[in-house]
Each structure stands twice: as structure tokens, then as C-alpha cells.
């Protein structure tokens, strides 16, 4: 017997009798014998829990956990203890999509709360129930722009994180969309270049804030241009920063999208994270994914239910807005619990502490003379500097001191040779920052 299979010999006998078969083989007679698999899989023999723990601890030791001083889409923010206790509750963890609302009000309630919080942070009217990650959420925003405008070309600022851009490129290529890039000027998307490239083939314009260089872009004058061209204005924004930064709605965006990992989710080698997608209400029927709405039950109790499902693949099939089915629901719960704990003041404090640490580090690094500014532009928690030193040597020195940082932007784009990224969150102490500066200042 094996612990996950409850079948005893007697059970199997009785079940076979009920079915009317001599051997369980009969049930598989439709499988052509030529392709029946008779061998053992090349998989190790069953491990006990004791062996498994040892084995995985051993593998875990092959990973080096470091003090994190870089970001670029994965941020080492504080994870409140409460969250894991809540998201580990089996009622949330082991249920599935709330197809039966009568026994899924837990899930539906937090989705409604999640949608409320995302719309409040972005200033938008509607949010869906979750997307896979920031990059794929941005790709879905691109598809929305195509569906709404019936145009096939997207303008993307080259200041958008290359990890987002590469996903956009993949999605666009196979859907038959074209992407053109808007140049940057001093690290920010260039309004003049946008003017030049806007025309009646452009479905939407995608920008990011803070951008790949950590810069808080200023979008004054952008939306008027984009809207005059009947294109959609799409802003990708790290959701945590919207606790303090001007919202996509204040920037007059039609769609807001991006990554929610910054809401205290572990960096965890890139996933699972959480993408968000929010829009003006007029576009709600073109949104992909689940959407939860409030209603009443027969006894007029307030209740929640998946709604506007005519948009979705299980109804519309090839005419659906998107193919998304499974999403990142449990991470939407994570985000909701995080935002409940932090509230407006906690989220502000996280940004304030990160801002202060990052600016202190920036000034200290420049003072070492090993680093020079690249752009003179406002930033929040991460920034880039140029160095005359060998980047690999810097990274090695940091690694030897148990620090991960100085990610090389030249690895993403050769134009940014010797430009490196640093990020400071509220988790980094002054002592850690001072140590980092001491190491980097001593290099030559």
C-alpha cells in the first residue's frame, strides 16, 4: 500500500466485480497494444518523507541565498508573517475556480476585495481577478488595444524592462501584431519620438513607470497625443509604488497593468508572482480573465459571483478575448492580505523607507568616485549608475560578501555596457548599505 492510494486488494476485487471485469486490463483495451507502455519510468524509486527532506535540503544547499541589492522586476520586500498562515488554509489552497458560488464565497469575496484594491491603487474603474505575471499582463493589455481599436501595431517605449519586451515580442509575433519602439531621451520615453511614430495604424502605446532604469517617468502631454490619435494609452506600473506615485488614471491611462510581486511576495526564483490588469469601465467587455461581481442570493443576502463570462474561453471558444483559464488566484489573496495589513500608511512607509535607502546608497556610491550618474532623473527604490570598473569583478566581490547586486544592464542590451542596477527596499539596514558602499568604494 502507498499512502496516497486508498485501494486495498479487497476494494479492487469488489470494484472489478461491480464493473464486471476479470482484470483491470479490460478497461484499457482501447489503447492499441503496439503503443502500450510496459516499462518502468526513468524515475527514482519512491522516497520516504525522511529521505525527501534530506534530499531537498541537500539540493537547497546548492542555492546561495544572498542579501539582495537588485530588483529589475523582483523585489525583496518584507513578507508579513500572517499571509502564509492565511494562504495555507486548505479552503483557499485546495479549492479551484469558484464555479459553484454557493460554496466558494471565500474565494469570491477576496477576489472582489482584490479588484477593489487594484482599482484603488491604479485609479482605474475595473480590474480582473489576476494574471500570470507582469509581462503577460502587459501582453494581454496589448491584445486588448488590438481588439478595441482593430489596429495591428503597438508602440512600446524602449525604457520598458526587457523581460516585459521579450514577452510582448513573442505574443505579438504569433498573433500577427507589429511592435515599434519609442526612443528614450535622458532615460525617459521621448515625447517627440512618440509624436513622430503615432499614426492611424497604432492600436496602443505602452510605457513603464518606474522604468527599466528605475526612473519615474513624467507623462505630461502624452495622453492628449495618444488619445487624439484614437490609440490606447497603456501604463505598466509596479503596483507597490502606486502607494505613493501618481496613478495611471491621473496620467489618463486607458489600461494599467504590471507586476504585484512587490507586495511582499518572496523573490522565489521568479514565481509564482502575480500580474494585474485594470482598465476604464468602457473596456470591461474586452478584458481577459475572470471578473467577480456583487449580487444577491434568493434570500437577498449579499453575495459574489463570477460575471461577464460571455467574454471567456469556456463560452466563446475561438471568439474569446483571451485563452486564460487558470490564473494566479492564491497570489491575488496574498496581495489582498498584504494590502489589508499594510493599509495606506504601511504601503507609504514601505515606499518612503525604500526611497530613503536607495537615495542614500546612490549618493554614497557616487561619492566613492567608482560610479557616475547615467541619467539625472527622479527615481524611487532602484537606480542605475555607470562604472569604469569591470562589472564581473564587482559582482564577484559582492557575491563573496554574500551580496547580490550590480545586475549588469549590458547583459540585456549592449548599449548599456557598464551600467549596473541597485535596489534598496525597507528590508535593507543602514549597516548593510554602508557595508556595500565600503566594499564597492574599496575596489579599483
Amino acid at each position, binding site marked *: 500500500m*502507498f499512502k*496516497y*492510494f486508498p*485501494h486495498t486488494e479487497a476494494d479492487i476485487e469488489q470494484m472489478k466485480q461491480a*464493473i464486471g471485469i476479470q482484470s483491470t486490463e479490460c478497461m*484499457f483495451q482501447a*489503447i492499441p497494444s503496439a503503443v*502500450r*507502455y510496459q516499462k518502468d519510468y526513468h524515475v527514482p*524509486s*519512491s522516497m520516504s518523507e525522511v529521505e525527501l527532506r534530506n534530499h531537498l535540503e541537500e539540493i*537547497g544547499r546548492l*542555492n*546561495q*541565498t544572498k542579501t539582495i541589492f537588485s530588483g529589475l*522586476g523582483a523585489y525583496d520586500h518584507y513578507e508579513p508573517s500572517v499571509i502564509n498562515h492565511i494562504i495555507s*488554509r486548505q479552503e*483557499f489552497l485546495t*479549492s*479551484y475556480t469558484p464555479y*459553484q458560488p454557493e460554496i466558494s*464565497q*471565500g474565494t469570491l*469575496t*477576496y477576489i472582489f476585495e482584490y*479588484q*477593489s484594491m487594484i482599482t484603488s491603487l491604479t485609479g482605474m*474603474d475595473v480590474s480582473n481577478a489576476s494574471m500570470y*505575471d507582469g509581462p503577460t499582463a502587459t501582453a494581454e493589455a496589448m491584445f486588448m488595444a488590438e481588439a478595441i481599436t482593430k489596429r495591428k501595431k503597438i508602440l512600446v517605449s524602449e525604457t520598458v524592462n526587457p523581460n516585459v519586451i*521579450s*514577452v510582448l515580442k513573442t*505574443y505579438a*509575433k*504569433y498573433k500577427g501584431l507589429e511592435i515599434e519602439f519609442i526612443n528614450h531621451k535622458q532615460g525617459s520615453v521621448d515625447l517627440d519620438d512618440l509624436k513622430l511614430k503615432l499614426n492611424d495604424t497604432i492600436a496602443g502605446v505602452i510605457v513603464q513607470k518606474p522604468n527599466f532604469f528605475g526612473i*519615474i517617468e513624467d507623462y505630461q502631454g502624452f495622453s492628449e497625443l495618444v488619445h487624439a490619435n484614437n490609440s490606447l494609452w497603456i501604463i505598466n506600473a509596479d503596483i507597490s509604488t502606486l502607494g505613493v506615485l*501618481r*496613478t495611471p488614471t491621473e496620467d489618463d491611462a486607458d489600461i494599467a497593468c504590471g507586476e504585484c510581486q512587490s507586495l511582499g511576495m518572496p523573490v522565489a*526564483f521568479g*514565481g509564482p508572482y502575480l500580474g494585474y490588469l485594470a482598465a476604464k469601465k468602457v473596456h470591461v467587455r474586452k478584458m481577459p480573465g475572470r*471578473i467577480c461581481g*456583487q449580487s444577491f442570493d434568493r434570500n437577498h443576502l449579499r453575495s459574489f*459571483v463570477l*460575471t461577464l463570462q460571455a467574454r471567456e474561453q469556456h463560452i*466563446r*471558444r475561438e471568439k*474569446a478575448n483571451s485563452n486564460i*483559464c*487558470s490564473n494566479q*488566484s492564491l497570489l491575488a489573496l496574498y496581495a489582498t*492580505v498584504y494590502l489589508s*495589513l*499594510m*493599509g495606506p*500608511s*504601511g504601503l507609504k512607509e514601505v515606499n518612503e*523607507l525604500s526611497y530613503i535607502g536607495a537615495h542614500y546608497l546612490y549618493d554614497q556610491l557616487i561619492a566613492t568616485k567608482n560610479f557616475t550618474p547615467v541619467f539625472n532623473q*527622479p527615481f524611487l527604490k532602484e537606480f542605475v549608475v555607470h562604472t569604469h570598473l569591470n562589472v564581473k569583478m564587482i559582482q564577484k566581490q559582492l*557575491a563573496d560578501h554574500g551580496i547580490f547586486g550590480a545586475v549588469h544592464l549590458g547583459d540585456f542590451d549592449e548599449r548599456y555596457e557598464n551600467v549596473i542596477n541597485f535596489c534598496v527596499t525597507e528590508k535593507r*539596514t*543602514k549597516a548593510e548599505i554602508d557595508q556595500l558602499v565600503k566594499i564597492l568604494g574599496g575596489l579599483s
Partner: protein
Amino acid sequence: MKNYDRLIFELSVKGRTGYSLPKCEINNYALNDLNSTLLRTEQPDLPEVSELDVIRHYTNISHKNFGVETGFYPLGSCTMKYNPKINEEIAAMKAFNSVHPLQSASEVQGVLKIYYELQAMLADISGLAAYTLNPFAGAHGELTGLMIMKEYHLQRKDFKRTKVIVPDSAHGTNPASASICGFEIIEIKSTQEGTVDLEQLKLALSDEVAGMMLTNPNTLGIFENNIIEISKLVHDAGGLMYYDGANLNALLGKVRPGDMGFDIMHINLHKTFSTPHGGGGPGSGPVGVKEFLVPYLPNPQVKLLDGHYYFNWNQDSIGSVSGFYGNFKVWLRAYVYILTLGKENLKLVGEYSTLNANYVRVNLEDDFYLPIKGFSMHECVFDGLKDQSSGVTTLDVAKRLLDYGFHAPTIYFPLLFHQSIMIEPTETESKQTLDDFIAVMKKVAEEAKNDPQMMKLAPHTTPISRIDEVYAAKKMILTYKDYLKENR
């Protein structure tokens, strides 16, 4: 707190907090140094609540949810098997949670080893050459797999192949994924027996067909016994075979998709490989391919050379489909599951899940209409009550089951029947559980005859009763702000 019905916003009291952060140790800097035009003008409407408020609220709403650990969850096509606790324990280890996705390969050899070994094990289990673990979910895997199919034809300069064949029994994600990948869909009708109609297939095939998407066993729980011929027909016409791995659970230990002629497939790790469904996700949808398609797998891939794991970016690849490497902690759980089962138990999954489904089928045939006779694989599909004279529908049956402490099966899918009830009892369910379920299903069938009015109003014992879905769609109250506006 049985009748608890608050939203977290309704617990908010100005000034309360549920967090603690380190004190600021650095002077002379402040967020307000930023130009005010860069900052938001009003603070966001987030709740202000204490830590205990948060815990009580989410604990209380959790009580209104039904999970696999609550009871039997026979949701067809979703493979709601037991989600082992050891998987959760391992996924919570610091060594896996604290590595940054941009750390160099030499610093994350542990996660890369898991990536590499898991993809190799999945390849062996499915009879393919290699896997990417980057796709986030089953539908995302379908999209990735179709991109690979398209890229294969493009690189051969075979530009005519713009169509994909999808049977009418397919999951809705299949045509949706194909459409998003820029393909036209040719839907072919199933035979009376619920399988692919070879004549229809022949008519659909041409040099414009990129490939065919197929689920096997299909969504009726029936094995496509002509699979060898189907593959041959599609291959002879120059197309590729795509396997939708949603129903892979039935095949473990019995047959491998690669051996049946499939070239590309995805696996739903949250189905066959036991990772929790999380109220809708995160899932994970690894995509596997035959050797000749390996160059097209998404970037980056993980490779092994002289005992060292490294990232590989391939020129011919379709590109990236994810910001980083997919839902790592989900595929980590699947890795632990495979090692827990080992080769000796993995091969029994298909056997036991199929045994369970056939046992349910034979026991319900008298009361529910079985449109297609013969053996089921891991799930069985009925077309409503055998006696529908009382007007009781599949929806009513599903709702009544909730009163008896069972999750409802998948209903109204597949679309081939009007009253579909799709039951998937996985291998982790005991004969006792199935007997209890069968007894209740029979009782419900009896109630449908004797008290249809009661059935129409079911459920009666759940936290809420049936919901007015029309109101939700019409009013579109999608946020707390909308709610306040409506109730002003």
C-alpha cells in the same frame, strides 16, 4: 460566525494598522523631495485594520469555501486529487524562496537541478525529448505549444499552414489558444461514439493545416482508439500533433503521448502532478516536444554540461513567454510529488483513477443517462438524469449535491450533450467515498422524481443560496467603490 458576511473594507477604522516596519536610520532624505507632480494626490482606499482583524476576516470567509480537504471534489477535467503536505513544506523552504531570478546560474544550481531533472522526468513519462517549465498554466502551455508549431512551419518556409484542427469535444481553451496564436480553427464533429471522425478529419486535412489539437482520453473520458491512424493522417498531410495534457492522469503507467504520435504537449502540473489549485491558480503548464522541435522551446532553457547547470538562449526559439522561469514553486511541488510516488507508484495512477471512474459509471448508469456506452478512462460523462420528466436539470442536481457535502461535478461540459455531468474521481479517493457519493447521487435522482420543487431551490444548507447572476451582469458592481455608489 456562520453568517459572517463582511468585506475587509467594512472593518476599517481610521488609524488602525496591521504591520510593523524597521525604524528609519538615515537622515536628510524624504519622499517629499520628489516633485509633487510625480506623486499621487490622494491616498489609496485601502482598509485600516489590525492584524487580528485581518486573520479573523480571512479565517471566517475561508469557512465559506469548499476544498479538497473538505470533501470529495469530482470536478471533471480538473483532476482534484489530494495535494500532499510535504510538497507545501518543501516549497516553503528559505533556500527556494530567497533566491532572486537574476542571480547567476552558479549561485542557483539547486533550482536549476530541479528544473533540469523535472523536465527530464516529464519527458520520460510522456515519451518526448525535452520540456520547458516556463508556461504558467495549461492554457499558457497550449499557447506556447502552438507557437512552437507555428515556428516550425515558418522556419521550413511553409507559410500556407494557417489552420488548426480542433474536435468539437475539445476544451474551450484549445480553440481560444489557437486563435490567439493567429490560427484559423477548423472544428470537426465527433462520431456517435464520441471519438474523432476519421472521414471528417480526412476532409479537413490539407496543406494549409499546421496541426491538430487533441485530448486523449477525450473530454468524454473515452480513449481515442484510432489514435495511431489519426496521427498518421495528420503527419502525412504535413501537420503536427498537439496533445492537451489535461487528461494525462488516465494514462500514467499505460501509454505515453509521444508513443501515440504526438509531437507537442502540455501537462497541467496542478492536475496530474498534485499541486494545489489555489482557488483558480497558480498552476503550471510545462510544454514538451519531440527532438526535432527542441530548438523552438521558449527561452531560456536549462541545460547541463560537465555537472554544471546553465541557462541557454536559443536563436531559433519562439522567444520568452514569461518574465522569468514560470511558477517555480509550483513545479518544485510537482518534483517532490514525483519523487514521493517513485516509479512504482506513478504507474498505478492511471490504473486506480480509471478503476474509480468505471466504478462510479456502472453504479450510476441506472439513474443517469449514459450517452456513450463502454469503458471510461479516468472520468465519465452523463447526459443528465435518466428520467427528466420532472424538469429537474443537471444544474439542480449539482446544487443539491452541495447540500450533501460534495462538490459538484463539472456541468454543461462537454458541449456535445445538453445536460452534461462530468465526474472525475481521482486515484486518491477510496471506495468508501465513492460509495457515499453514489448513494447520494441515487438519492438525488429519487428526490428529482418526488420533490422537483425542492430540487429547483437547492442548495438549502450552504452559506448562501442560488445567486442572481443576471443582476451581477447587469449592475456590474465590480469593486467596493461601485458597491458604495449603488448603496448610497
